[in-house]
């Protein structure tokens, strides 16, 4: 058996203070198996009594080499891998990946598919925020939040199951459109969801807004300034809670987001409570977007007509030789976008989710790099938690809303 290398404090000398070397402060390992680290995040805390002097996050426990794997699979095969990066935002990952392919290949997406994509993306956002609210509420002692949030999340997952047959890893959004048209029951299910959701959001607020313990543990804790947010490249609800009204859906609209009427919730305190407010208000805004998308959904095809990239419908294959050839070619060789590179960014529930894609003109992607918000936001964790108690660290990790699959890929 090969030797296991031991890491000594000496190697982390540049990260801890002198007091740690003399034993005045204590180094404590938190995680990777810790219920409040939301996955497998390891934090090395330097503690003075109960106060955090410094924090060294250690990630990589969920590294699965998705970027390397993608290089040996064709574009369609790789898409299912993107679901599994940020497992709370699978459709958002698909969307970003598909937008990159579409930009590279110059594919057009029909109006109807765009509306469906918006609905699915916003439902995913609500799904992600609900799980966040439940788990981070639970971290802060509001145990019942989890049960209520899971109840509504079930409704969202049912809708996903309805359209794609899958509850979580849907891979419903495909290059050039969506997998298939939505079933008839879809509209009713979504409308039912929209009917109950605003009332339920109010319920959550009632549970937390007047909860003394929750307020004590969130207000003024984990503050990060807007300037630091920019320097550390943060995005999403964290930056909006620090007073910067930055949302890619408004700033650099994709998928026709510019045609929808919605607001960006912004708070300026920069603490855990502000992040909580931003996310809860975002759920309401997402409901508004979904309703508008449902009301104006046009009739028509849901996939692009470009047969070099998008497989023909089943009905065509039986009667058209070309359709059969295209189908065969697409599923054996895949498609080959022209040479070039693109960077596409979308607003995921956690922040800017980017996809850098480079094609060398063959059917295998030359390089795909997902720029994931969890990775970036995690980096600012020490900044937020210095000088606070260990118990606050738990709340701060929750408030940043990290998904370790997203950070490690």
């Amino acid at each position, binding site marked *: *058996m*090969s030797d*296991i*290398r031991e*890491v000594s404090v000496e*190697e982390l000398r*540049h*990260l801890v203070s002198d007091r740690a070397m003399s034993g005045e402060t204590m180094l404590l390992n938190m995680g990777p198996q810790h219920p409040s680290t939301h996955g497998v995040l390891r934090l090395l805390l330097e503690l003075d009594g109960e106060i955090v002097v410094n924090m060294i996050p250690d*990630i*990589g426990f969920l*590294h699965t*080499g998705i*970027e*390397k*794997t993608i*290089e*040996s699979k064709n574009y369609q095969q790789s898409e299912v891998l993107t679901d599994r990066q940020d497992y709370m935002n699978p459709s958002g990952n698909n969307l970003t990946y598909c937008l990159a392919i579409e*930009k*590279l290949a110059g594919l057009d997406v029909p109006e109807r598919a765009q509306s469906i994509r918006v609905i699915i993306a916003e439902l995913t956002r609500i799904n992600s925020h609900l799980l966040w609210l439940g788990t981070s509420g639970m971290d802060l002692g509001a145990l019942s939040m989890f049960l209520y949030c899971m109840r509504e999340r079930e409704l969202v997952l049912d809708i996903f199951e309805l359209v794609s047959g899958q509850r979580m890893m849907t891979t419903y959004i495909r290059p050039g459109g969506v997998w298939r048209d939505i079933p008839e029951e879809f509209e009713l299910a979504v409308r039912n969801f929209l009917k109950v959701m605003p009332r339920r959001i109010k319920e959550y607020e009632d549970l937390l807004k007047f909860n003394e313990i929750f307020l004590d543990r969130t207000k003024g804790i984990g503050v990060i300034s807007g300037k630091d947010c*920019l*320097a*550390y*490249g*943060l*995005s999403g609800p964290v930056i909006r809670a620090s007073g*910067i009204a*930055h949302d890619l859906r408004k*700033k*650099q609209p994709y998928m026709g987001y510019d045609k929808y009427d919605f607001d960006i919730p912004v708070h300026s305190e920069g603490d855990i409570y502000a992040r909580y407010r931003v996310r809860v208000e975002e759920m309401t805004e997402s409901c508004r977007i979904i309703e508008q998308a449902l009301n104006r959904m046009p009739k028509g095809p849901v996939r692009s007509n470009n047969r070099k990239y998008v497989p023909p419908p089943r009905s065509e294959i039986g009667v058209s030789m070309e359709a059969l050839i295209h189908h065969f070619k697409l599923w054996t060789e895949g498609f080959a976008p022209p040479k*070039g*590179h*693109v*960077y596409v*960014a979308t607003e995921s529930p956690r922040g*800017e989710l*980017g996809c*850098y894609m*480079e094609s060398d003109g063959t059917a295998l992607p*030359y*390089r795909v*790099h997902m*720029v994931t918000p969890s*990775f*970036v936001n*995690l*980096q600012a964790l020490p900044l937020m938690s210095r000088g606070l108690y260990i118990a606050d660290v738990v709340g701060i990790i929750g408030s940043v809303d990290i998904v370790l699959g997203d950070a*490690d*890929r």
Partner: protein
Amino acid sequence: MSEHLDQTVQSLQKRFDAQFEESLGETTIFVSPEFIIPVMTSLRDEFGFNACMDVTAVDYYPEESPRFHVVYQLYSMDNNVRLQVRTKLNGNAPSIDTVEKIYPSANWKEREVYDLFGVNFVGHSDLRRIEMPEDWTGHPLRKDYPLGYEEVQFTFNFDDIMQNKPQPKD
């Protein structure tokens, strides 16, 4: 291309001999690695690119010069424009100055590039592996790094499998 971006590119072309490329609505400038610090500093201070969203690399093996491209994605929040900065690095052990002091967000991003591509960032404050274990050999995202099926190792067949494992060259 917006007016602001136009000015930025022209100024960089003049001062740092940067090459410029526009494709699919995205602007890319190529700068030589020794200018990366002054280019990034002036981009942040003079042209308002206040956020570095990503640092990554691309390996063009078997090409030797340049073998690597290091790719920076900059974003200007006030002007709402993106700019891609690329540098070309030669050889199997490339190195470039770190931009961590200009954009703190590049700290982890550069660690990731170092971990997965083996690009050495000179002057980086904490250049350790971030995704792979500390004792890993090789840099997985290099194109000459073998990608193969790996058998599950147990104590009884550990050495056997270790011997037959495809290994990276360096």
